[in-house]
């Protein structure tokens, strides 16, 4: 037998010590002097510890359309300043359409707008209509920003639930993954996350004729909006309002929102505090329109339209509306966290109750233990002493998987547990290959030591080839899989890599260590 290099023993010993240390945090808490990189336990996936898993789709095109819409105001100001008369200013998707009244003004308007709106591409005017189209790069930027902003807003709302370690990350270009471990009330979470919380203040058009407007004759610059439906499902029960289209103040100016009790009716309300810019705007608005009504619009529904009795300079406002305490609480949370820049929609949900998670852990552990016991017994019976050596390697292998998963911060899922179970069965494959080869060599009449050498050497390339193909499948699975299935790919890959080390290097070392001291071996227990 070749003499077995000393350094390999040391390598194995080092790997053993490190993996034992890295596995320990999964069983018990470790002292503070323990190396930081070895102090993390494996994290459990949501399917094992229970919790809410949502994938949200952000309607990014709405965010872009909204920003284009807002630019109508700037266009109006530019034209007014230059005293250019216009007939109609409108937006459609990515473009602004500005209809100029007099043909002789068109050239000047074009020049002005080109200078002011460098985010837009201008097309030559046709019939006095100037079309400005948002540059694709800017539109992309707006989309990206909308998702990032939505993540921040949602984070604020979820943090208010007071759960530990929620995950809120971008997925792809316009999706957001939300995971709230240990939280069960999926309906409440969806409700809280899904609300746009768009808050707007608009003036009521006191001079306009609401009745005419309802018949389709809406005065220019006005809009009809409705209050809440008094009878659910009956649109006629909602009170209509004729409002000025222009938004005087929006939820972005809100710095704080708290649940309060409305002193007049003794019901729950939400008190808003504006930031300094909002306070100034609110001050100006109320000063200029005493005696008129302003409408508070929450998510497109007119919440109330109180009369401005006097100038309000304190920078706070109150929203009432016969809320239950829970409703008021949720409203305060979403107003505080801010509005979503665009509507979001739940496109995928996988929520697990805590009892199912615990059941899965128990059943998974049972499968691992029973499966391992079967394999250990079988190997011992079938390959005798060599089988026991393979069993040592198998236990080492499992330790390595746990250690590696802990160190790379892997997440253990239910399919991940299945991956470990499968690895137990497949990890002994390398040893089976080697041992069968040794038996063949013995059968061909080689001496025991030569047979061991031959077995290990000849089986080596087979083991590598066979494992690489399984690795290929696992890597593809990791690339294309989602969530828990990814966890399966991870444990399977880690298990395969670990098994190559334990089944080849570790068993060889044990065999070498036990045969070296004996001068001659007559018979192998295989």
């Amino acid at each position: 037998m070749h003499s077995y290099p000393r350094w390999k023993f040391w390598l194995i010993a080092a790997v053993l010590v490190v993996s034992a240390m890295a596995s320990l945090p999964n069983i018990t808490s470790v002292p503070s002097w323990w190396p930081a990189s070895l102090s993390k336990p494996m994290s459990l996936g949501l399917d094992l510890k229970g919790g809410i898993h949502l994938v949200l789709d952000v309607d990014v095109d709405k965010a872009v359309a909204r920003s284009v819409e807002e630019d109508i105001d700037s266009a109006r100001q530019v034209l007014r300043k230059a005293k250019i008369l216009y007939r109609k200013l409108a937006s459609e998707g990515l473009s602004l359409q500005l209809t100029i009244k007099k043909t002789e003004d068109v050239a000047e308007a074009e020049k002005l707008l080109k200078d002011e709106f460098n985010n837009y591409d201008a097309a030559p005017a046709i019939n006095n209509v100037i079309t400005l189209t948002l540059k694709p790069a800017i539109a992309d930027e707006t989309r990206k920003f909308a998702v990032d902003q939505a993540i921040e807003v949602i984070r604020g709302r979820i943090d208010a639930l007071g759960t530990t370690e929620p995950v809120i990350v971008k997925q792809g270009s316009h999706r957001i993954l939300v995971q709230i471990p240990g939280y069960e009330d999926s309906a409440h979470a969806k409700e809280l996350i899904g609300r746009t919380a768009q808050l707007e203040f608009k003036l009521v058009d006191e001079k306009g004729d609401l009745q005419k407007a309802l018949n389709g004759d809406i005065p220019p610059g006005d809009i009809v909006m409705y209050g809440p439906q008094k009878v659910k499902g009956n649109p006629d029960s909602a009170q209509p309002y004729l409002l000025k289209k222009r938004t005087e103040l929006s939820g972005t100016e809100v710095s704080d929102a708290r649940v309060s009790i409305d002193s007049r009716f003794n019901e729950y309300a939400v008190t808003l505090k504006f930031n300094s810019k909002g306070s100034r705007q609110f001050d100006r608005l109320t000063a200029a329109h005493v005696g008129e009504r302003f409408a508070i619009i929450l998510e497109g529904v007119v919440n109330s339209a109180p009369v401005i009795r006097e100038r309000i300079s304190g920078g706070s406002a109150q929203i009432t509306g016969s809320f239950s305490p829970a409703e008021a609480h949720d409203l305060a949370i979403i107003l505080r966290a801010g509005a979503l820049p665009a509507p979001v929609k739940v496109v995928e949900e996988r929520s697990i109750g805590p009892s199912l998670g615990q059941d899965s852990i128990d059943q998974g552990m049972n499968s691992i233990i029973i499966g391992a016991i079967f394999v250990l017994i079988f190997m011992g019976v079938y390959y005798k002493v060599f089988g026991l050596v393979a069993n040592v390697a198998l236990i080492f292998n499992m330790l390595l998987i746990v250690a590696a998963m802990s160190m790379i911060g892997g997440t253990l899922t239910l399919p991940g547990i299945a991956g470990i179970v499968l690895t137990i069965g497949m990890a002994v494959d390398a040893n089976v290959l080697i041992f069968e080869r040794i038996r063949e060599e013995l059968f061909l009449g080689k001496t025991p030591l030569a047979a061991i050498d031959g077995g290990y050497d000849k089986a080596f390339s087979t083991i590598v080839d066979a494992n690489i193909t399984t690795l290929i499948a696992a890597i593809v699975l990791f690339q294309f899989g989602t969530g828990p299935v990814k966890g399966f790919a991870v444990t399977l890959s880690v298990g395969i890599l670990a098994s190559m080390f334990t089944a080849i290097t570790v068993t060889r070392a044990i065999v070498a260590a036990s045969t070296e001291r004996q001068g001659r071996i007559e018979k192998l227990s295989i």
Partner: protein
Amino acid sequence: MQIIRPDINLDFIGKRKIAMFISALMILISLGMLAVKGLNFGIDFTGGTLVEVKFNKAPSIADVRNAISPKGYGNAVIQEFGSPEEILIRVQNREGEKSSDISTAILGGLNESFTAAAVEMRRVEFVGPQVGEELTRAGIMAVLIAMVAILLYVTVRFEFRFALGADAALLHDITIVLGLFAITGKEFTLPVIAALLTVIGYSLNDTIVVFDRIRENFAANRKRKTPEDEAIVVNNSINQTLARTLMTSFTTLLVVAALFFLGGEVIHDFAFALIMGILVGTYSSIYIASPVMMSLAGRFKGDEEAIKEMEARP
């Protein structure tokens, strides 16, 4: 203990016609069932809502249906899941409905009829229609890419005809496992795709071991000239690796059986796919991969050079 002795010599190649016939029959049945009955796709692919609840005492399916009917889901698929106390409710997505609220409505209906204390939410899954399409595409892509990657790897390590033999075995295995899902009507879910990919990896693992031995024996046996010589070498190689093939399949089956019986309902179909895949994969690595590889001898340009080059390798 030794069940399969190193000098075992069964005539696998000689029986390849029978094996091919059996395989062709199984594939035909599978394809037929897939065409006629189709797969029972889970909500991962069709989109929809799944609610698993546990009651404190076994309810009747009719009571459950009555509880959710007022919410408009009286036509939901309702079934027991693992034990009589556990109930699985499935609803398809409907056009123009805010689908993520379906689970809320169902749980609400159950809480009203059975009281909140008697009903426990175990699992809620909702897959929107678009996500369903994406997952389907990703699943098909994964299987195809895995097969191409494996084709490339085996071509590089062996020869093109070996790669084709390996892929033929893989297609064989996947078709039959899919056929079994169509026949049993078991739910085809995302984890089952994972199981299929694992079966691909596993079946290949087996095939590679045999191929490796064939390559080794080809190299040691340079004088083979006729197809008959080649058949003998291939048959010997299969016999020499037979012990290993069966042992490994056995240990893997042991653990997967543990998963099947003890792993719980959620993982049940996944384990089923693995068990079937391992059985079929073991069979195909003996009876399909090598015969297909042999039948393709001399069909490809460069085979001779490849053999020479291969033989020159240490």
